[in-house]
């Protein structure tokens, strides 16, 4: 028996309007889901063409979880999304060419080639740069929430982690401190059931990770991470509760990592039946069906969005490919910040 609340699926268009989304917003969500998956599909091709060095990670299966949560964020909120959360980058407005450019290690990318993957910050969009040590960014996001509380700002910080990272101490310290001080932070667990090759029953012994929230003094909720509208509704509720001084919430989005840990990994350890079952719940197909059934979504509208996304991504790939590689000497620059950099507004 779960301790955390188990969220209901979202039903009608009316219910969605109540949660704050107009039909136009729903089409935006659909578009963002397509951009999210499309970026990773194109990135994978670029990787196979050896145009992306290092390794390449995708979040296939997690699109609805990341888009749903990010859609519920306010313009001045901040977050520290991870490598399965491309949808957060897309919804916050990171231009796709910049992400491709960062994958390729280009000079005009957000990190200038200093770091790869989606390891970058965007101060203006409220995005913090993840590190590979998961969930090290969780206490950091809690610190942003602490700053908001000290300054009495109506802003919320979002902190992402996974089923694997739930086993680490940073998760506990971050959540405990946030609970003690009732900080405006929402913890989002992308539970995709596999931490590299390790299944959840070897990561934790409780039924749901969200069950732990009660022990930290706040609410936990488990939501179907393939249902973008249910994720949105739960995230919106949690974020607004935090904004109003209600403290943290832990949202656990249940998904399946539909591809390997990184693209070199064939994930042969994931049972075929598990993949088949979750393939039937593909978040994008599922939302498309919902739009047709509940929002009179037409073939023409779908074609229009599909071709806009295709064009956007093609232009983005071209722009990123055309960018220069960094001057080797820039490897030596930027270790320390200069005093004048503190004058820049950041994370507005």
């Amino acid at each position: 028996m779960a301790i955390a609340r188990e969220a209901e699926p979202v039903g009608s268009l009316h219910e969605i309007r109540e949660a704050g989304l107009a039909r136009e917003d729903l089409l935006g969500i659909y578009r963002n889901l397509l951009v999210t998956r499309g970026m990773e599909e194109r990135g994978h091709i670029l990787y196979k063409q050896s145009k992306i060095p290092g390794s390449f990670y995708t979040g296939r299966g997690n699109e609805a979880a990341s888009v749903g949560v990010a859609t519920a964020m306010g313009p001045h909120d901040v977050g520290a999304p991870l490598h399965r959360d491309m949808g957060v980058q897309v919804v916050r407005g990171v231009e796709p060419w910049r992400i491709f450019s960062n994958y390729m290690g280009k000079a005009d990318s957000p990190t200038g080639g200093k770091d790869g993957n989606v390891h970058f910050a965007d101060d203006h969009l409220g995005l913090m740069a993840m590190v590979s040590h998961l969930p090290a960014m969780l206490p950091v996001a809690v610190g942003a929430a602490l700053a908001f509380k000290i300054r009495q700002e109506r802003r919320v910080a979002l902190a992402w982690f996974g089923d694997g990272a739930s086993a680490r101490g940073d998760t506990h310290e971050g959540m405990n401190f946030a609970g003690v001080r009732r900080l405006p932070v929402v913890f989002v667990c992308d539970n995709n059931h596999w931490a590299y090759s390790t299944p959840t029953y070897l990561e934790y012994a409780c039924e749901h990770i969200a069950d732990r929230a009660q022990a930290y003094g706040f609410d936990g909720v488990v939501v179907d991470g393939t249902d973008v509208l249910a994720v949105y509704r739960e995230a919106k509720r949690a974020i607004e509760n935090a904004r109003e001084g209600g403290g943290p919430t832990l949202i656990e989005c249940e998904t399946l990592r539909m591809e390997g840990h990184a693209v070199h990994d064939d994930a042969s350890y994931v049972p075929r039946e598990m993949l088949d079952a979750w393939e039937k719940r593909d978040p994008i197909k599922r939302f498309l069906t919902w739009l047709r059934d509940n929002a009179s979504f037409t073939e023409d509208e779908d074609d229009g969005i599909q071709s806009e996304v295709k064009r956007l991504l093609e232009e983005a790939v071209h722009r990123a490919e055309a960018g220069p590689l960094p001057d080797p000497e820039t490897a030596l620059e930027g270790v320390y910040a200069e005093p004048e950099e503190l004058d820049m507004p950041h994370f507005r």
Partner: protein
Amino acid sequence: MAVMTYIQAISAALREELRHDERVFLIGEDIGVFGGAFKVTRGLQEEFGEWRVIDAPLSEVAIVGGSIGAALVGMRPVCEMQFSDFVSVAWDQLVTVAAKQHYRAGTPVPMVVRLPSGGGFSGGPFHSQNPESSFAHVPGLKVVCPATPADAKGLLVTAIADPNPVLYFEHKHLYRRLKDEVPEGRYAVPFGQARRHREGTDVTVVTWGAMVHTAAEAAEAVAADGGPSVEILDLRTLVPWDRESVLRSVEKTSKLLVLHEDTRTGGFGAEIAATVAEEAFEHLDAPIKRIAAPDTPVPFSPPLEKRFIPQVEDVVRGLRDLVAY
């Protein structure tokens, strides 16, 4: 000028910075109501409230990680590790998140970690360490080790204003032992400028923190004995460190003794010795000498701890050896 102890100078700097800049806040274990394990923050919560002098749970990761997050959204956190030894728990936050943030993501992390360090009180292996060299090895961090009350205040002001993560090692053995004149009001002591603690012509001693005073006692002892004239340079900051002043002094004296309380192998003294060997070899009249703690944990029992921490007589012997070479 007011006469203050080293610990009073740290408290004064914190109070003045809290008054001067509303973005500054303090966070640590037992620092608020209780005033801190060493009473550095006594009275500050009363003046500034519980949201600017924050009692944290026993959570070094949350304290340091939280400070990073607050710095990233425009605050100026000054966090306290109750003992510098406990910073090992927050290593990942400092080394993985804070140190690499600006290089890879371009965002400054203006924060200070205060680290009461050093031995001499039978604190044992977990309350006596000097881990400054470990952090000096990490690009992206700055490392500060004040040796006098005036520097304790001025370097802390500079650390809080710095746009980078700064580790401020305050030596516990100096807290109440040192009393000296400290300028009134806010003033900043710049990083990377060594202080000549004693002028001399025959041997240069490069050191920092509490060992500055061990070196001074040794220099007085050999001088009283008609021995060599010893110059002592207090580095003040290890990152950045003042290579120029060290090289200039060695050119003058031709003999170098590097002294630190941290353990020997891979200690920052090795970096200083290597730099002088590379850049001032032709000025040297003797091999560079290092005096440091042995490569062991810090032992508890007084005779063992005395054997561990470099003593005045060890430095006297080192100075005599160098001069006799």
